[in-house]
């Protein structure tokens, strides 16, 4: 089985602040090596497991210089080939479509059986877009693989477990060629020691293949990154009193039910609250709270 794993670089988690990212885009993108994006570590582990003790796999990255760290780790995990799709700009400036198209174009010219991609939060579109461009099926959120089936030419497939919504899982039989995506932590990765990293670096200099990232020129305007800003939460459509009702009613709705009720009610407003009572009362209080916070439906 020929396995390709797509890796990319990232900022160390505590550094992921907007000022660092902006600096990264403007100042360091050529030299900055980055660290391996965590889900790619799981992807590498899966690629390693899939290709078995004897077989090697290929690691592919894209962008400017920032993927050096990712390729180093890939080598330390046992990637025999390290390929880097070079682009004039850092990978941050590309949208998922451009990247997916470029990866698919590169993969399409070669004969891989399995392409493994990391997908940090499970909502990155790139792995699925790559599959879509290649016309391959995609198995997302893989969290383990069971066994190889006899690899005769007529039936080439692997058994995988896939995570679904709401805690469901399924086991699937996936035929090659196929794109797999993993989230970080789904496949527990091995530790790569500094020494192993360093040895991989020695090997890397001579082993990385640089390719030009194909630019998507089909006459359509691309997606453009306009700005990176600190988070500015969007305003929720909060329920404010209906402007059409009378002032007294508007006020009443602001006051909540407590204003008109005769019996005293514990206040439910000021931050943390500690309540005492019997187990039944507490349980009911808790359910009320969960409903208020929309963790439970009101039925």
């Amino acid at each position, binding site marked *: 089985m020929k396995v390709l794993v797509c890796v990319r670089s990232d900022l160390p988690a505590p550094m992921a602040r907007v000022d660092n990212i902006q600096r990264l885009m403007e100042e360091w993108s050529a030299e900055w090596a980055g660290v391996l994006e965590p889900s790619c570590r799981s992807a590498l582990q899966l690629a390693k497991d899939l290709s078995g003790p004897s077989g090697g796999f290929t690691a592919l990255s894209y962008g400017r210089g920032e993927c050096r760290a990712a390729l180093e780790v890939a080598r330390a995990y046992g990637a025999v080939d390290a390929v880097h799709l070079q682009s004039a700009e850092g990978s941050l400036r590309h949208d998922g479509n451009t990247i997916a198209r470029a990866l698919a174009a590169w993969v399409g010219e070669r004969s891989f059986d399995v392409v493994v991609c990391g997908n940090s939060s499970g909502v990155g579109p790139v792995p699925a877009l790559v599959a879509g461009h290649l016309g391959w099926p995609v198995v997302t959120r893989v969290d383990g693989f069971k066994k190889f089936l006899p690899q005769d030419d007529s039936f080439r497939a692997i058994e995988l477990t896939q995570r679904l919504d709401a805690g469901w899982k399924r086991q699937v039989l996936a035929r090659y060629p196929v794109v797999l995506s993993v989230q970080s932590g789904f496949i527990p990765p091995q530790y790569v020691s500094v020494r192993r990293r360093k040895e991989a670096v020695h090997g890397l200099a001579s082993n990385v293949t640089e390719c030009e990232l194909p630019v998507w020129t089909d006459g359509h305007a691309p997606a453009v990154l306009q700005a990176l800003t600190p988070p500015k*939460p969007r305003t*929720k459509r909060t329920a404010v009193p209906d402007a059409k009702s009378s002032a007294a009613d508007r006020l009443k709705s602001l006051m909540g039910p407590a204003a008109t009720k005769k019996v005293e009610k514990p206040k439910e407003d000021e931050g943390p609250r500690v309540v005492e009572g019997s187990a039944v009362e507490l349980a009911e209080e808790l359910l009320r709270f969960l409903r208020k916070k929309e963790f439970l439906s009101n039925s």
Partner: protein
Amino acid sequence: MGQFDMLLSPAKIRHVEVKNRIAVTAHATGLNPNSYPSDKFIAYNAEKARNGVGLLMTMGSGSVHPTSPNSDWGGIHNWDESILPYLRKMSEAIKPHGAILMAQISHRGRRANRDVTWLPIYAPSDDPEPLHRDMPHEIQSEDVDWLVDAYVQAALRLKRGGFDGAEISAAHGHLIDQFWSPISNHRSDAYGGSLENRMRFGMQVIDAVRDAVGDDFLVGLRMTGDELIENGLTVEDMQQIALKIAETGKIDILNVIGSIGTTEYHQALTVPSMNYPAGIFTGFAASIRATLQENGFDIPVLACGKIVHPLQAETILAEGQADFVGMNRAIIADPEMPQKTMDGRIDDIRLCMGANEGCIGRIYVGKPMICVQNPVISRESELIPWRPATAQKRVVVVGGGPGGLEAARMAAERGHQVTLLEKSSQLGGQIRLAGKAPNRDAYTQSVDWLEGQIRKLGIDVRLGVNADEEDILALQPEAVIIATGSTARRLHLPGADAPFVFTARDVLEGGEDIGHKVLFIDEHHHQEGLSTAEYLAQREHEVTVISRLWIVGEEIDGTLRPDLYARLDNLGVVIHPNVLAKQVEADGSVLVENYHSHREWTMGPYDAIVVAAKGVANDGLWKKLKGKVPELHLIGDAVAPRGLHDALLEGTRVARVV
């Protein structure tokens, strides 16, 4: 730290970066007797900046013109050049602490009080302000220029004084709001009628101020989110107004509050007390922010109105209801709140309970502000420089009410070895009882905080100890602080010893079988009176209140009284002012008289008579201990039955000298 990621993150207003989202909005303080920023006022603001407030707005209703004087409530006059040295002094004292400093500029229009400068007051139309009823002069089109110029000059003075920005007030029924609002604008010229016309004056002010101050100075606008008054502006109107203002590109931050200061009720509502839900107005800020964002405007919005807890503030920010949170009263109650939030010491924060009787309530009646639960506020020079004790003493505090708790806390902070004796099974004294009255539960936060601090300090607290002279001497104290509080006072009326006559404290303590039909004699005039009446009414009693005063519950804070009246009315409570009880008859009827004419008549009969009156000092123990211990102090109600603030103040004062 992740808990307050948004609250503590920096944000930009125009060209200026603010270090966090904690804001203090401009508010009155009553601290400026000459209407120039006093040293006390500057220190008060600097303390906020030092404790980490990011955006500090000051000078509530800072007046731009002599036709809108402020000295009746200790406000600032930004009328002429004479204020400049004070402004510079202020910015020099505050800005080094890293806060962004803005000040409010406003003309109060018909809300102004003529009897300071004895100039006529001005308004869009000749309707008087319902609150004080002074007749205004209708603004003529030729008046607009000098009015606008007053705003401009005031803003320029701020700029020259080293401030980062000015906030134009268009809230609280001030002049710009008066033009906007159909309740005060009945004009038919270019300044009345359509929304565009009604907005014209405000737009002229905004344009002129921005043109004058240039691009490197912040200009904010304070506005209501809904006037919440019949025929007034609604949130939909305000969304439109906000959009039109945003389109000018001249305003850098919108500060959204609710209500309008036009009636007693609405004036109270602008500073929502413990009677209102926390964050009552943030929905308005959110609606306006959403409208702005949907239309592509990126102006930061500040929400305010009973934002008391950092977690509450964080939620408001995280849900995108606002970009900044105004936490005035929260920071009055605990100036260190921002710093404690940064340090993650949330349970050390003294939470504002919305009592209002120290801050805004006193300002409305022309007195300088204090904080009912934090005795340090506005006594910074007296109480902040405290010293550790030179010699550790064995201090015994008798009484676990607020005064005793504060005395014990402070004495222990200073290094004394403190023993606190409390008769009942819990700490907090009468405040716990007061908290049982409807809508008064927040009042107990004051003693909750003290109790928490006392536990952290590891003070030896002994509950259920009804200490007598021997008990105390057995502890070999070097100092004794008596904080034994007060007992309920029974009225000296003929027949008042009948079994159906109760005190308000009897009612709140519960356990008494009180009849259905109740005559409530309010001789307390503070919350213990009417709140106990409400307590009874909530429990289906038929309640009639008599008071010899013509403002029933006169000592209740002006910002808590209107909605208390409203609730009592909803509960069917009948209130008779000017009525004095003379004699209780055996059948439950009461002989009363008109307090002014002395005309007598009989009310009732009633099933029960409840009397609320000031307490009786409980100082027996103090008298017994006199001369028997090296140091003996008497504080709080045991000196003379008063209130929470007096007890705390005396407690902290005495603990600083033992």
